[in-house]
């Protein structure tokens, strides 16, 4: 076990040479406390681009679904308000889609905090403890430097919800030209999601579910920042989270144990 060393010295922690795993860099700031470089630069950029696109997509999307303001017009169809709103929605949708693809790539090639494997027993037992923690029940939730399993599950679900919104969105985008190459890429969705009305419904409902996710996500981050004093909020800008050295070693032991099991298997 590598021990955290002096201030400002970056040391890889734990075993190396595992599947494309970048071991976390961390700095000891004061006795007993370390700063861990959790969120790498690309994922931080992605986070804020994604947040901004969701906001823009939501506002323009609600307008498209239910135009709440009228164009200022002489009464002739010379304005282009809905047209512009749709164009902004479409361009942002492409950014959101590229972000989704990037984040999927980052699941495989980011550092170890970029995902938690959902098909492990430890993930689900940790989830149970985390749920108890959030329900103020006695629990054995360890301190997670990155995502706790419940948070991770919500991000997996967020990814699936985003995918549904992206797919149905592209159907709606290409709907006027179903006989073109692009149209043929999306017209199969008739058979999965149902007719045009149903596809629109899926798009709309999942957009709202994403908004609910965002609200809970923001609350949880603020709460974590205040309760755990882990610098959750600022970490999405600087990349660093604060953790107790003891917690870190504990987590590392956990992972190491698991790795050993994996190696044997």
């Amino acid at each position, binding site marked *: 076990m590598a021990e955290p060393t002096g201030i400002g010295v970056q040391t890889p922690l734990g075993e190396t040479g595992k599947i494309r795993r970048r071991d976390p860099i961390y700095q000891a700031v004061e006795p007993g406390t370390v700063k861990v470089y959790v969120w790498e630069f690309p994922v931080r950029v992605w986070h804020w681009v994604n947040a901004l696109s969701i906001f823009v997509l939501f506002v323009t999307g609600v307008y498209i679904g239910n135009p709440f303001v009228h164009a200022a017009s002489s009464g002739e169809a010379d304005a282009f308000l809905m047209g512009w709103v749709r164009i902004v929605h479409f361009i942002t949708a492409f950014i959101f889609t590229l972000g989704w693809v990037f984040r999927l790539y980052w699941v495989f090639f980011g550092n170890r905090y970029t995902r938690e494997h959902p098909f492990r027993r430890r993930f689900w037992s940790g989830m149970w403890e985390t749920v108890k923690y959030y329900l103020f029940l006695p629990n054995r939730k360890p301190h997670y430097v990155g995502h706790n399993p419940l948070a991770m599950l919500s991000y997996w679900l967020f990814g699936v919800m985003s995918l549904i919104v992206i797919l149905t969105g592209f159907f709606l985008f290409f709907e006027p030209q*179903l006989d073109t190459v692009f149209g043929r890429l999306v017209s199969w969705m008739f058979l999965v999601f149902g007719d045009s009305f149903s596809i629109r419904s899926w798009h709309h409902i999942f957009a709202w579910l994403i908004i609910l996710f965002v609200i809970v996500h923001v609350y949880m981050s603020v709460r974590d920042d205040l309760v755990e004093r882990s610098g959750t909020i600022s970490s999405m800008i600087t990349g660093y989270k604060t953790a107790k050295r003891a917690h870190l070693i504990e987590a590392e032991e956990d992972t190491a144990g698991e790795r050993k099991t994996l190696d044997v298997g």
Partner: protein
Amino acid sequence: MATAVKRKTIYEEQREQGVTRREFLKVATAITMALGLKLKMVPTVVHAMETRPRLPVIWMDFQSCSGPTESFIRSYQPNMQKVLFDMIALEYNGALMAGSGTAAEEHILKIMNEYPGEYILAAEGSLPLLPGALTIAGRPAEETFREVAAKAKAVVAMGSCATWGGIPAAKPNPTLAKAVTDFVPPGVPFIRIPGCPPIGEVMTNTLAHIVIFGTLPEVDELARPKAYYRHRLHDKCQRRPFFDAGLYAETFNDEGARQGYCLYKLGCRGPTTYNACAELRWNGGLSWPIQSGHPCIGCAAPNFWDEAPFYARVVQLPGTQTTINPERVGAVMTGAVAAGIAVHAAATVITKGRITKKKTDVKAQEDIEIGQ
């Protein structure tokens, strides 16, 4: 063909009725145009009419209002008489035929035996799964349908009830109605002509297409003829400029409605409905609902009746027959989540000291275990 008697071609029959060659060519050209074919296709149409006999059609009504039949006989281009008397032989239609009872039912059998694999079964209305809900001449309609469909060249489902289940299949669906296309025996091709009712010209043109080319027209993913159902009304709508401009009628009586603004906010289903209303229009091209100031209710769309209310923008919960106003429900859900967060945050503040203490206890135990 089972029977040895050679059937007269369409051309021969017309000549017998005193139609001159010149008049015949005029009719053939008019039909070519009505079908939207290129002018150079006229010889193909002429050849088909010279060599093919009239197409026998059995038209059966099930759980329907006979709307498709009513619309069919109001087709203008080609008009019903042209199709009915020149191109097809409508052998059976509950709403139009003079005969009834045993004689009529026997006629179906006669057609089935004389023209197996050659006649078209045009079906209108849905079929119920509830026993006894619909019988024709004392027999379950479903049985009769399967029998007649099994020997047909193709089944043409006319109207939304036949294509999707329509109003009989809408909530609460007391007769367990399903679309006739769900009952078509395997191996028999079918085509869907949705609409409540479908545009008359779409029905006559589809039959005329089958007569001339001997095949079903090209269809989309949901088996609708592409020529009429490839585009949404929204993309061909004459009010579309007002949609893009952001100018909408809010009620049926406001200035927007008088100015002919987009009917989107009045629940118009144009953006989700595939039909040819915007091009062919109704009553011989006179008008169509959106032109005359009424939002589209999406009658050609699957489940259209369950997508009510017609005059509001709603979404359907996937897999159900329930619609919601997404913005209202979304706002309520957001409020509920916010309330939940407020409670949780308050609980966090109140219990903070206690929980932290407990956590420390647990942690201490763990440390002891590790220590051992």
